[in-house]
């Protein structure tokens, strides 16, 4: 018994000074928030940590809303959000918040049809109507007219949506509301909305859940973040943009969509319905949120360094991970704005 106690005490004596020393020279930055850019952020922070000895970045993909909550409660050093942050939320942080768009992504409409027809074309009014529960069959006349030569079966359309509250849903409904007045007046815009009640509307948790359900259900259609659809090899539809062109996701369409909007001074820009003829219709920036006044100047310096890394080296990773790199002019604006992190 006594021997145990001495061992324990000795052990504690050995452990405690070393752990103190460790936390002294290593700087740890913690962040939380959006899951949509999580794969990219995880890759960024890993390589950043390898290049900057002594700085580790821990990022937790909890969801945009949770990230904003954490930032307000001051439990993290930075947060990330697909829905940026409202003025009301920003007012809750004394000292102010700096929003920085870090990358951008596309949301695709994935489908599963017998015979795997590739590159299905979806006219604007048709996909809005499908998600409103008005168009219920794949053999719909307008769909057939847009896709001559494609054998569209007489199959029920099963709509797969997100079951959890999500930034992806926010961006998608924001776009649908811009396309269809009926959508704007009906379900509206939000991280969760009141979807039409139908036997053919099912919901799955997270991007992976929707992807899996679409893949498993013949006749299914669902909205997914591009990277998830790409890696799960889900068929992605060509969407008709405002200019009337059918554009495929993952190509030139994303950057074209971003180029069509001007960055406002608060860096909170939405692209609900881009007008450029080559633009892919559903694209969005995603933001990191920083305190303008940090308590520890060392941390502030590390955060600025991290932003700089993400804007330069990091952007090169974006394309291969399925995200859209920031346009050059936006990178300049963001880098200037990052100086306010003090």
């Amino acid at each position: 018994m006594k021997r145990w106690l001495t061992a324990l005490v000795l052990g504690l004596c050995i452990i405690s000074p070393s752990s103190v020393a460790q936390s002294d020279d290593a700087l740890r930055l913690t962040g939380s928030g959006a899951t949509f850019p999580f794969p990219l952020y995880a890759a960024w922070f890993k390589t950043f940590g390898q290049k900057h000895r002594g700085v580790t970045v821990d990022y937790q993909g909890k969801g945009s809303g949770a990230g904003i909550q954490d930032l307000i409660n001051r439990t993290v050093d930075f947060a990330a959000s697909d829905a940026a942050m409202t003025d009301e939320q920003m007012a809750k942080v004394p000292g102010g918040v700096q929003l920085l768009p870090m990358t951008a992504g596309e949301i695709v409409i994935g489908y599963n049809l017998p015979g795997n027809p590739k590159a299905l074309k979806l006219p604007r009014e048709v996909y809005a109507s499908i998600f409103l529960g008005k168009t219920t069959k794949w053999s719909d006349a307008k769909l057939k007219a847009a896709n001559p030569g494609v054998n569209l079966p007489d199959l029920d359309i099963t709509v797969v949506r997100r079951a959890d509250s999500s930034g992806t849903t926010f961006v998608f409904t924001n776009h649908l509301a811009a396309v269809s007045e009926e959508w704007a007046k009906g379900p509206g815009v939000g991280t969760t909305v009141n979807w039409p009640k139908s036997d053919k509307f099912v919901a799955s948790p997270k991007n992976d859940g929707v992807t899996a359900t679409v893949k498993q259900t013949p006749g299914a259609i669902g909205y997914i973040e591009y990277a998830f659809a790409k890696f799960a090899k889900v068929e992605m539809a060509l969407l008709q943009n405002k200019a009337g062109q059918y554009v495929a996701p993952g190509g030139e369409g994303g950057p074209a969509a971003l180029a069509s909007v001007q960055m406002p001074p608060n860096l909170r820009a939405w692209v609900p319905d881009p007008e450029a003829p080559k633009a892919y219709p559903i694209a969005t920036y995603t933001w990191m949120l920083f305190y303008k006044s940090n308590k520890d100047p060392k941390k502030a310096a590390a955060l600025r360094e991290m932003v700089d890394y993400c804007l330069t080296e990091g952007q090169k990773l974006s394309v291969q991970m399925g995200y859209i790199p920031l346009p050059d002019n936006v990178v300049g604006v963001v880098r200037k704005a990052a100086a306010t992190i003090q």
Partner: protein
Amino acid sequence: MRFSAHLERSRAMLRATDRRPAADSPTVSGPPSNWDYTVDRVFRGLARTATWLVLLLLVAILWEIGSKATVGMAHHGLGVLVSTTWDVGRQQFGVLPHIWGTLYSSLLALAIGGFFGITMAIFLTQDFLPPRIAQVFRTIVELLAAIPSVVYGLWGLFVLVPAMRPVADWMFARLGWIPFFGTTLSGPGLAPASLVLAIMILPTVAAVSQDALRLVPYRVKEAAYGMGATRWEAILKVMLPAASTGIFGALVLGFGRALGETMALAMLIGNSNQITLSLFAPANTLAALLALNFPEAGPREVEVLMYAALVLLAITLVVNLLGEVIMTRSARRLAAR
């Protein structure tokens, strides 16, 4: 000189007594030493604190949920319990479809899981198998309880749903006029969710039913045989009625587990806020609603989610209490026999 020798001796004696720690004393004849008393007291104190901490934890959880839920109750009243709309953007909340889905899926699971669980219990306790093989089967059934919920969910999504689709389509085509088969299966839905739930509650039902059947004294069965009953007559007319209260308790426990199951259901039920009788239609449950909406909920939504949590807690508590009461009564009745 003499004095120092005395001192020396008394020191040696002291050392001797000191060196005999009472805790590992080989003799039992001596009175408990102070050390014994201390150990005893510390242990008793620890045990008591642990017990109170558990109770305190329960009270704290109830208080936390209750106090937050009352805010939601004050804002939305009882309307939440009967409304069917869940629209965060317009601040309209209703959990009737979730209550319906929770009870419907759990009852279905209970019907399926209960039937198979009890059958299994009979098979494993009534000498159909050599004892050693019965033990193997028992272990396998109990292993079902160790599979994580999310694995059940994935299995349901990737194996069960595709396997069920042709059956469901056939039933819809032939029996579509019956409201239970009124829709086609669109991937996730009540039927696959209930089936998976049935498998999940099977170990609980089987294990508790086995205990109940084993509690019936052997002479009861012998008496039945003695009166010329066949094996099946003995099982169905003597053993089952004798163990009935215990088996009923097993069913209630299984039902309680089904009500609270979350992850597998969130993945399989389709999370659609509608009330329908059709087995192939998507539905929703309270537990899935809570799990999926908490992470991103705003302050107003959290109040209502807490309210929903309280409703779920109330349903589970009532069911579990019922099971507990029935079980103790059955044990007492059998002991008296």
